[in-house]
């Protein structure tokens, strides 16, 4: 590590000297942020926590410092998981310098060494990112060069190895479980409106882009020939005219047998398209997506949410209230067909329905189905998804009857008076819990969900907010007959009610009490209350939050990537600040 830092400093100083007479300390700006999340766990037989398995405390923390001086910037991030909080991967356990980088960018050329976060297009072939709430970080440790040879033209190249928790980046131990390949990629983007003066003020907008990414991995398999270089390419187009925009990207990946796809040699494909229209008071977006065998990892034996080279964007509504978030869709890496329509409309002020302040309406519908997979002939018999074969064939435009997910929701957001504000939403949900969460044989979640969120401004400093939520399942509720052996499949199932009351004294204090009650669970012993009390103090950019109570089992999803959160009981402290 010391060696890395010395190399980094040498590079930084070298770049700094090349930048001319500019001093590395004069005129520089330092920024950063820190966060610590700590959970103290306690036994709580009421929600089935009879054993803490030796863990009474979990602490996740990071601190990052960035330095910018003209064309030069550099940063480090330090992380500590001592030990990691429940629900985070145990491989995170540890402490150390997780991330560092140095960048020099003068507008024509930009060079970064160290840990790189970047994305080509929508990420279908390359995206590295860090998501603290998921405990996920797939940064590429290596180098990136960006060239801008002409106005509107950007060329980019990246090269490196991805972060895998605390595993070393050396290649000497190829037989180790943490061995992963090298990733290298190039991307080109051309913005015609910037390049062609005649188009600079035009209502017509157009940009083109293309990427190629390849991973270099050693074939460690005993009985399959694993391709040691796997390439993926994509092409993208963005068009716009006035208020209408259209963007699309198509990606193709060559044979990439892996543990995720059951070692089949089929190519991967993905198509993403979005059409949108917006004007004052009205906006609409239609998105469609098809992916087939597009999991792309730098470790072909990996099966979990790590070492992803690419990113398959979800096209679902992101719910923030607790009951709608109980069932959040997780992207299926082996294939899915999805569509989403979002319409926003503001009823103008001064009309009968708009009232004095106007009324915002939003409609969203998204649905995800499986792709159709047809058997292939192998040694005289029909097989499907058999290792060592092409796996299956799939009609690009065919949609399987197997529906994974559907969410239809409508929201009204209304400022009623100077002191009252109201948001209400109704959601109709279909969630294939067997596919998404792996509860084999469990009935699909079909639920109606609603919430009412009312804020009352007591005076200029104080306000009260009340949230009332309900979730009613169509089939599974109290009285539903289940097999004793499948009882565990019914945690969090059935009807729920939730309420939250929050009192805020601006700008510093906030106090809230909340309860979630799974009153309609078919299993009597799961009909639990999840009480929490929370105090939050904010001072400038510093936030301290202390909460005590119970946390229900669930999933946390960001961008279609999810982690399971086990039920817990205890005290949680979060301290964060930035400067």
């Amino acid at each position, binding site marked *: 590590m010391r060696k890395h830092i010395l190399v980094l400093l040498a590079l930084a100083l070298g770049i700094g000297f090349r930048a001319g007479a500019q001093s590395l300390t004069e005129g520089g700006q330092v920024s950063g942020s820190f966060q610590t999340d700590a959970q103290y766990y306690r036994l709580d037989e009421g929600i089935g926590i009879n054993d803490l398995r030796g863990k009474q405390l979990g602490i996740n923390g990071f601190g990052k410092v960035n330095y910018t001086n003209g064309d030069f910037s550099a940063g480090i991030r330090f992380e500590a998981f001592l030990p990691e909080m429940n629900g985070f991967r145990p491989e995170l356990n540890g402490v150390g310098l997780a991330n560092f980088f140095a960048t020099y960018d003068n507008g024509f050329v930009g060079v970064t060494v160290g840990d790189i976060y970047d994305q080509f297009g929508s990420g279908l072939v390359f995206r590295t990112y860090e998501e603290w709430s998921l405990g996920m970080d797939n940064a590429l440790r290596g180098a990136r060069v960006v*060239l801008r*040879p*002409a106005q509107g033209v950007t*060329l980019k190249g990246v090269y490196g190895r991805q972060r895998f928790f605390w595993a070393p980046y050396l290649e000497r131990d190829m*037989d180790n*479980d943490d061995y992963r390949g090298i990733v*290298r990629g*190039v991307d*080109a983007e051309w913005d015609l409106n910037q390049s062609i003066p005649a188009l600079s003020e035009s209502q017509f907008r157009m940009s083109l882009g293309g990427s*190629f990414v*390849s991973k*270099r991995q050693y074939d*460690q*398999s*005993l*009985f*399959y*020939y*694993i*391709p*040691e*270089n*796997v*390439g993926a*390419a994509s092409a993208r187009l963005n068009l716009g005219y006035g208020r209408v925009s259209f963007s699309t990207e198509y990606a193709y990946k*060559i*044979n990439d*047998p892996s*543990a995720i796809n*059951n*070692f089949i*040699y089929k190519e991967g494909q993905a198509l993403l398209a979005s059409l949108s229209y917006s004007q004052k008071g009205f906006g609409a977006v239609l998105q469609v997506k098809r992916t087939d065998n597009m999991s792309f990892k730098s470790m072909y*034996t990996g*099966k979990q949410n790590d070492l992803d080279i690419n990113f398959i964007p979800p096209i679902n509504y992101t719910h923030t209230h607790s009951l709608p978030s109980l069932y959040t869709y997780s992207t299926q890496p082996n294939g899915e067909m999805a569509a989403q329509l979002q319409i926003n409309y503001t009823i103008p002020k001064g009309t009968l329905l708009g009232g004095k302040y106007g009324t915002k309406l939003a409609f969203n519908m998204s649905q995800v189905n*499986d792709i159709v997979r047809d058997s292939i002939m192998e040694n005289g018999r029909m097989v499907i*998804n*058999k*290792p*060592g*074969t*092409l796996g299956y064939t799939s009609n690009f435009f065919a949609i399987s009857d*197997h529906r994974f997910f559907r969410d239809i929701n409508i929201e009204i957001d209304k400022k009623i008076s100077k002191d009252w504000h109201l948001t209400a939403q109704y959601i109709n949900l279909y969630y294939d819990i*067997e596919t998404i969460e*792996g509860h*084999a*044989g469990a009935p699909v979640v079909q639920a109606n969900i609603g919430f009412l969120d009312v804020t009352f401004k007591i005076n200029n400093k104080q306000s009260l907010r009340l949230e009332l939520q309900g979730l009613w399942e169509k089939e599974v509720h109290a009285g539903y007959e289940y*097999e004793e*052996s*499948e009882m*565990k499949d019914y945690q969090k199932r059935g009807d729920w009610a939730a309420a939250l009351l929050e009192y805020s004294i601006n700008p510093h204090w906030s106090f809230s009490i909340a309860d979630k009650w799974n009153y309609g669970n078919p299993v009597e012993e799961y009909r639990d209350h999840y009480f929490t009390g929370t105090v939050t103090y904010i001072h400038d950019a510093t936030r301290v939050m202390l909460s005590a109570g119970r946390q229900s089992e669930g999933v946390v999803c960001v961008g279609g990537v999810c982690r399971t959160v086990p039920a817990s009981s205890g005290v949680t402290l979060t301290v964060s600040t930035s400067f």
Partner: protein
Amino acid sequence: MNKLLSILAVAALLCVASGCDQIDINNTHKPITPVSGSKTVLIKDFTGARCVNCPEAAEYAHELQHRLGEDRIFIMGVHAGFLAQPMGQFPDFITEEGTAWYNDNSSNPLFAVDHVALTEGNTLYVEQIDTPVSDALAETQLFDINIVNTYDEATRSLSVKNTFYPTGDGEGKYYATVCLVEDSIVGWQTIPGGVDREYVFRNVFRGTLNGADGELVSDGHFYYDDTFVTNASMVLDTTYNADQCYILTYIYDYETGKIMHTEMQKIK
């Protein structure tokens, strides 16, 4: 500028050309590389009829067995865990011993290669079993096992005599477990996208004849010309197909749980 763009274009083409390896789809399997030696290896496949990923994992393990030697690798399907719990038409293959070996884990499929139970460091996902199997095959064989089964069709009573022959001098505390295995049982199994109602369950562990830990074979020093004999018996359940039943015996180091050798013999 044109020169720069030309150089970049050539570099990009070279990058694409060197960045893709297309495997011939008619030649995806590597030639069999026999591992020398005579030691056998037991793969315990901790599975469940309601586990959607288990059939694929089992197929992978059988492919490994096929490629590295069917006479030297044994796979036993141990149904244990939440996804093995019977429900509706799904079969019940759960056993007390299998549940003990499963050791309170919470997922399927999981594998143990030449280990009695799923313990720390010996709990493997299917994609992790290649190297341990290959390594175990290359180990020196410490014992040989001879199984003699006597089965009475009328009474369905089965007697098993196991004889253990050390292949050299040694020391330690060794136990042997005698397992009953039934092959090719047809029943319901969850598969991706639904349920296969005629799924063929291979080598299903039905129980032991001498407990989850087995019984003592040798404690202390042993010599090349020693022989150790154990006897066990049982009455075969009437629902089991005797034509498809086998006795699988393994001998293991009691301190570490590591299996030293395994043999399997049809009961009829």
